[in-house]
């Protein structure tokens, strides 16, 4: 185990702590995304703040998920997709060929639309990330990471007696929290959430939203959501996407009470979408 990795994570932390107020965590500049010939994202630039929840809203097919997947280079896994532009994170362009997507993703976690626990035990689901990145020195350290991640995700009390049970045996809401715990386990700085509640019932959704609010204290969270109420409830900043373009971006309160663009106005008042 490399103790240095923790140092590495710590330095990043300290740096953030120094200029915490209004700090920009991710700075996206002129992003274009193409699927083969078809352009899906048109010249989007935005700065995403640390220690805050940023919500991406917009009608389906507007490119908000595609844009989200740029931030941890998940689009690399799609053969036909190509991304142009710069995404600066802690002073480095993550699209630079010298940046390893594997390392990037250990710092930018992601939670998906449908809960997707690995076909392994609950424990192994959480331990998977720390194991591949070598974050734990031994069994006891790994146990600690698993427990703290599950606690942070608010799942510990429910599963502490059956850590060896398969992850798929949990209920949908629990599975999603398991996936969040899994993402937290590698101590990321950014957590991307792609409609994390779309497959869940209202009670499970409320539980996740609470969790997101708690996590905001430590992480930079970006959430794509279909539900404007959800965006209003959990986010501090909101970006409205339409037809692959960023229409409006600002404080959630302002966006929902006093939008500048007529399209945003139409969308949040339910005239389309």
């Amino acid at each position, binding site marked *: 185990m490399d103790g*240095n*990795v923790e140092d*590495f994570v710590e330095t990043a932390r300290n740096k953030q702590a120094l200029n915490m107020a209004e700090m920009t965590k991710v700075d996206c500049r002129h992003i274009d995304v193409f699927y083969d010939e078809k352009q899906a994202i048109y010249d989007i630039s935005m700065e995403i703040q640390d220690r805050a929840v940023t919500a991406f809203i917009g009608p389906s097919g507007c490119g908000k998920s595609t844009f989200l997947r740029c931030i941890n280079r998940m689009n690399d896994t799609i053969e036909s997709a190509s991304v142009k532009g710069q995404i600066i994170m802690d002073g480095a362009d993550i699209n630079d060929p*010298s940046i390893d997507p594997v390392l990037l993703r250990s710092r930018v976690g992601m939670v998906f639309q449908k809960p997707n626990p690995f076909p392994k035990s609950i424990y192994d689901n959480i331990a998977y990330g720390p194991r*591949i990145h070598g974050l734990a020195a031994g069994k006891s350290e790994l146990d600690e990471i698993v427990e703290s991640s599950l606690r942070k995700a608010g799942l510990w009390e429910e599963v502490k007696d059956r850590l060896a049970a398969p992850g798929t045996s949990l209920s949908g809401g629990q599975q999603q929290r398991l996936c969040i715990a899994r993402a937290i386990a590698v101590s990321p700085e950014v957590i991307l959430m792609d409609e994390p509640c779309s497959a869940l019932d209202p009670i499970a959704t409320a539980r996740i939203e609470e969790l997101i609010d708690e996590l905001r204290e430590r992480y930079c969270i970006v959430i794509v959501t279909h539900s404007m109420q959800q965006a209003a409830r959990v986010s501090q900043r909101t970006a409205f996407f339409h037809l692959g373009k960023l229409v409006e971006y600002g404080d959630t309160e302002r966006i929902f009470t006093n939008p500048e663009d007529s399209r945003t106005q139409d969308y949040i008042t339910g005239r389309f979408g």
Partner: protein
Amino acid sequence: MNSPAPNPETKGTFVTDAALKRLKKRHAAETRFKFYGQFAIAIAVLALIALLVSIISQASSAFQRNMLVFDITLNAEDVAPNGTDDPDAIARNVSGFNLLLQDSLRDQFLPEDADASETRQLFGLFTRLAVLPVAKKTAAHVDMVGTQQTVSVALADDIDLYLKGGVTERKSIDLGQVASARGAIGDGIYVSLAPGTDTSALAEAIGGFQEQSLDDSAPTTLIGIGNTWYSVTGFSSNEIALAYLAGARVAPDPSQGIRALVLAQAEANRTVSDRQIAWTMLLKDEGRIRKAFNSTLFTNADSTYPELAGTAAAIVGSLLTMLVTALLAIPVGIFAAVYLEEFAPKNRMTDLIEVNINNLAAVPSIVFGLLGAAVFINFFGMPRSVPLVGGLVLGLLVLPTVIIASRAALKSVPPSIRTAALGVGASKTQSVFHHVLPLAAPGILTGSIIGMARALGETAPLLLIGMVAFVAEVPDGPTDESTVLPVLIYKWSTGAERAWEPQTAAAIIVLLVFLVLMNLIAIILRRRFERRW
């Protein structure tokens, strides 16, 4: 993710040395794993290439063969006994033609007092039945009798193989010219080489072969001077002792060229004797050995002589068998698929049929052979070795394949088509037969052809129902004794003579051509009619 190694110069906070070190290991594992996959694919592709190349290179020599040409008068008393002009009698008179050609060879090459062994060797240049095409041609043009004709017969398999470079390794050496010769044909002849030339090349070649040989037998050396061939009994650096072997019985003249032929194996270890080789060389010098396309391979039925054996009977047998197979498997398979996909109620009986069909598709083919032997032959008393039974067995064998393919094709027709037909008042049966089945037809057809291709290559079950019998005639119908191509391949591959090997490979090529054609048709059908819903 094929990312290049991180470059420390441009690192942001993303990279520390420790993480880099660990990452290096992980990326090495990644590269290794990817390489395993490429390696596995390379092995599979190489295996396929090795298989095809080895078979094609074997087969290529079988498509061409060497014919012995005669310029000969077809004497009536030899070829048309008792003055007959009945074509059938002439065609059947194989021994007459045979004697005529054998005599012509003997007159040319052997003295009156030649012993039986020599005569046998000479007559071994071609097999008796090889004259059959000549007899048939004469029978078809009776006016050829009594006239001078140019006819050609296939050389015996071993001679043919020798001419194609088989039987034994060899080396031809030019030893310059004869300076002087002494001795007589009967007692042995001594030839001195022209000044400036010596026998070192000869010694070198012999030494080379001797080193390779597993046993201690010495290589043989034959010498040709003019129209005479000798075997070497000994040699010094510029003189060679020779014993007469074949050809003109005249002593060598000065300034004639000396050709040496070093054969890696001793005479006792090969299927072609020294004399036969000498005669072959002489005939070649006369221009009487010609290469011709081996049409026998496609026109003849099976034979015990490789040079006369062909695939005609097996091809017809295969076609007849396929006909029976298609008549059984395709309609029954399609109807069964229609029933299971469109009509079957969801009950245990249907489940049973489903499980049963899936299992049947995985039952070893030889078990179907046992079924055929026990049920069709033993219980129902059907005859052995006939395409009818073979076709039935293969039909049952490919039935699950056809059913599964047809079901997949039916499944791919969207339910909206069915509801549309039902919506205008068609009955269930009408909607299936008027709308669903025609739309699924290309897929069903493709599946059926692929099933037929599988049946065409099937061997094991047919062995058990006696289709391995020797069949020398092209079958007339599905109840005639016959064999099929794959079984013929199996039988030829067990033949003892070396000449069967290229012959078998050639039959494999014929089979593969049929299979490629069938698959091409299937692919074209799929391309042409493929429909995306």
